[in-house]
């Protein structure tokens, strides 16, 4: 059922925005559901450029960080990318304490996330085209 989904996916250009709709909690009790939904999407859609939007999330625990690392590995292996946006200051702090702010690309908000994630994909495509041309 749609109301039970913790992540709602929407395509914006080349970017898939995954709005995390966990309300006030994203903890050890519902993290499995979150991971399964996001991972399921990535597996069904290889080469996904996923931007997870945490605007509605007030809290998360280390269990979510583990799920995000798994999703990130799955995205990379399938030729895609994972980016995050709209973390509140406490959640941002959790990433900093665990040094994961250096691993994940984190954007301030959805607007900036879509724009800059799209830009990074465009730059990567241009570089690949240039390298291909150079080889020929």
């Amino acid at each position, binding site marked *: 059922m749609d109301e039970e989904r913790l992540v709602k996916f929407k395509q914006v250009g080349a970017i898939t925005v995954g709005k995390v709709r966990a309300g006030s909690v994203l*903890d*050890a*009790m519902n993290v499995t559901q979150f991971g399964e939904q996001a991972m399921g999407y990535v597996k069904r859609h290889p080469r996904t450029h996923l931007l997870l939007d945490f605007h509605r999330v*007030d*809290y998360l625990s280390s269990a979510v960080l*583990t799920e995000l*690392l798994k999703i990130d590995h799955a995205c990379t292996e399938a030729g895609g990318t994972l980016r995050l946006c709209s973390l509140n200051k406490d959640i941002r702090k959790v990433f900093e*304490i*665990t040094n994961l702010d250096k*691993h994940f690309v984190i954007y301030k908000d959805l607007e900036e996330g879509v724009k800059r994630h799209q830009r990074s994909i465009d730059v990567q495509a241009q570089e690949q085209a240039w390298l291909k041309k150079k080889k020929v």
Partner: protein
Amino acid sequence: MTTQAFFQREFASALDEVGGTLQDALAALRERDWIDAGQEFYARLCLEEALVNAVTHGNDSDPSRSVRIEMAEDGDVCVIRVFDEGEGFSPADVRPPDTEQMDGRGICLIRYCMEQVEYDASEHCLIMKMRRNALCQGGSRNG
């Protein structure tokens, strides 16, 4: 110094048992003015990480084993003890995991937030100490 327990709870080792205990423990900390609104996120984080670790790592998610939490006042320090029936570990030996590792971040978060964190092997309990409204203000954080 005598300690005055103001909260005690015991539950079977299952993740869906954690939520209710967590909420009640947070309410007890609020009632006793150990945390204000700005500290609630970090208090919840530490309690949840400790309780989930006790369930999943300590007791191997075996519902026949139990987890117990006790919170007590010791002068101007709040002492939180989380008991499990597992083998135990040394919080000081848990290093911040790299991105290839899936576990170990919970105890790093607790160490960052709490003033002091230790494991009493004889009692099978994780002991966390905090001062009033002073989470994330130094103490046990050492990377």
